[in-house]
């Protein structure tokens, strides 16, 4: 099975570091005291938002997904009637129900296809990709479309924080857990077309394997929406009498327990070593490494240990567009693959191997995709 076409959609203009707060809005008119520090740490230079400077939505999540899918289909060498399956991933669709794939299908006007919506955070796109790939392997479809789209800014706009009057954000002097992702995430969509044969022209990516290891059984929740972020309070947003109360209490704010984040890197390395141990992955044969997190997040002793153990991936093989396209959660890898195939920054040759790594901090799901560059 092959990835034969890709497409992306990045809403609105490219937003520079210092403009970000103009779009998301300064909470109670007061600039954030954490913004500069967090932006400096994540090193993202430009990003896109599907809301304007008045925090009004310019594109729905469904529209963004459909736009990326349209571009992907326009670039494909097959007609859209060949698409038998649509798999859609997002952290939060426009509607809590039905699944986002229904809405995207409607927007694309793809008739009578099989649909799948995957729910999760960053790794949900890999879940969708794997399910579509498996359906293709069962020869149920000739072609499948996998789309991932994120509209995080709606969760991050100032009004969300202003309404959370009894939340940890309102009561603490500094609430890192609710602000961390505010300066990290942004919006965008990516789409991949899977086919049972390579494209007649240009390069395709053969999917060799997709593996995933989740560690939710062992570790606490690290990134979430739906609770007030107090250990002793077990309520989730739907347990409050009204949604208004949940919002007031900060149960609808996006949270990241940054203290737990280092576990993500560790579990990522564990899965990587497991694949090496099982003989699935051969580090010396990896030509390109596409990682949802940028390498500086991993600048840590554990990478040093991987080098020492002879399985490190040299810095020059890492490639990412996180710094210019932003961290778009589950859509990141698809947006990365699209540009990777087009950029002049790297030369890609037939036969080269591409290892992709998408870790999800939500509750520590680590996913790996191995591709080989082919041409017909």
């Amino acid at each position, binding site marked *: 099975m092959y990835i034969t076409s890709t497409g992306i959609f990045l809403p609105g203009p490219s937003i520079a570091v210092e403009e970000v707060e103009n779009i998301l809005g300064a909470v109670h008119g007061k600039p954030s005291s954490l913004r500069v*520090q*967090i932006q*400096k*740490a994540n090193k993202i230079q430009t990003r896109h938002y599907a809301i304007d400077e008045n925090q009004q939505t310019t594109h729905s999540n469904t529209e963004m997904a459909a736009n990326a899918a349209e571009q992907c289909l326009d670039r494909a060498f097959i007609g859209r009637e060949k698409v038998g399956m649509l798999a859609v991933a997002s952290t939060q669709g426009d509607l809590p129900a039905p699944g986002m794939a229904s809405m995207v299908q409607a927007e694309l006007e793809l008739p009578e296809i099989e649909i799948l919506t995957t729910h999760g955070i960053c790794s949900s796109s890999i879940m969708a990709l794997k399910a579509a790939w498996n359906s293709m392997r069962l020869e149920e479809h000739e072609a499948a479309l996998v789309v991932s789209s994120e509209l995080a800014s709606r969760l991050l706009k100032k009004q969300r924080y202003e309404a959370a009057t009894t939340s940890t954000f309102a009561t*603490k002097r*500094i*609430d*890192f*857990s609710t602000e961390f992702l505010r300066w990290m995430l942004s919006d965008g969509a990516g789409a991949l077309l899977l086919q049972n044969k390579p494209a007649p022209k240009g390069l395709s990516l053969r999917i060799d394997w997709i593996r995933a290891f989740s*560690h939710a059984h*062992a*570790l*606490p929740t690290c990134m979430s929406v739906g609770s007030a972020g107090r*250990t*002793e309070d077990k309520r989730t947003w739907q347990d409050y009498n009204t949604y208004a109360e949940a919002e007031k209490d900060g149960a609808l704010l996006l949270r990241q327990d*940054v*203290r*737990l984040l*280092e*576990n993500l890197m*560790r*579990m990522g*390395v*564990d899965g990587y*070593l*497991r694949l*090496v*141990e099982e003989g699935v992955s051969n580090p010396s044969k990896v030509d390109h490494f596409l990682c949802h997190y940028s390498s*500086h*997040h991993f*600048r*840590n002793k*554990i*990478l*040093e*240990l*991987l*080098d*020492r*153990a*002879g*399985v490190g991936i040299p810095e020059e093989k890492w490639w990412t567009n996180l710094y210019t396209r932003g961290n778009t959660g589950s859509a990141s890898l698809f947006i990365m693959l699209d540009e990777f195939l087009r950029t002049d920054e790297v030369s890609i040759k037939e036969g080269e191997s591409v290892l992709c790594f998408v870790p999800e901090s939500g509750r520590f799901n680590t996913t790996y995709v191995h591709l080989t560059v082919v041409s017909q």
Partner: protein
Amino acid sequence: MKNGEIKIETDMEHEIEVDEVSEGLNPHAQVCLQHLLRVWLGFERDLAKVPLLRRIDLGTYTAEDHQLFLLNIRQQVIEGSRWITRTASSFDRDHAEIRSTVISHAVDEHRDYEMLEKDFVASGGRLEDILNMERNIGSEALHGFLMHKSSQPNPIDLLGAMWIIEGLGEKMATSWAERIQELTGLGKDSTRFMTYHGHNDSEHMERFYATLDSVCTDEKAIRRIVKTAKVVARLYRLQLEELEQSGE
């Protein structure tokens, strides 16, 4: 949540000291290190499920928890110097180099438990309680295993034990000590044992890699070292799981 979070930036900015990485391990030692890394990461993940340690992650760890932790860990720290010195004496003349390394390691650590006793008192515990504390079930099993292993001729597989125990020392210093102070309101004098271990860490690890490179030269050595690491990880976890059972 005070300063802990501000630290994130400096963690992320941390640069690798590349010059330390360059000396290469032999291919068997490299494979052994790959396995050891996985044993460690599995151990660390399992520790996250131990109720008392999970409270560090969840932010509900108390001064009483800290006392209980120190109270239970002391016996193993005292016995630690015994198995290390016995290990040294079990190496024959063909392993003189390793013997020297192990002896110097033992010298570094054989009075560590005194620091731990002071930490216990600084955390609000009574000295006589920690002096009279018996080994818990896990400490018994761990101690028994390590004394047995260290009595074998040329016990190179104890490198697996050192890997786990040194790793935990580093984890205490880098991940737990400051967080415990923050959660409990206790002062620095309650976590000296934890932080002290961090200071010696890089030197110990360099010695560890040099020893691994010299003794891990075939498949059999890999298997022995990795298996011992697994047993020690399991028994160490048992010791920590038994923390809250002690005194019953």
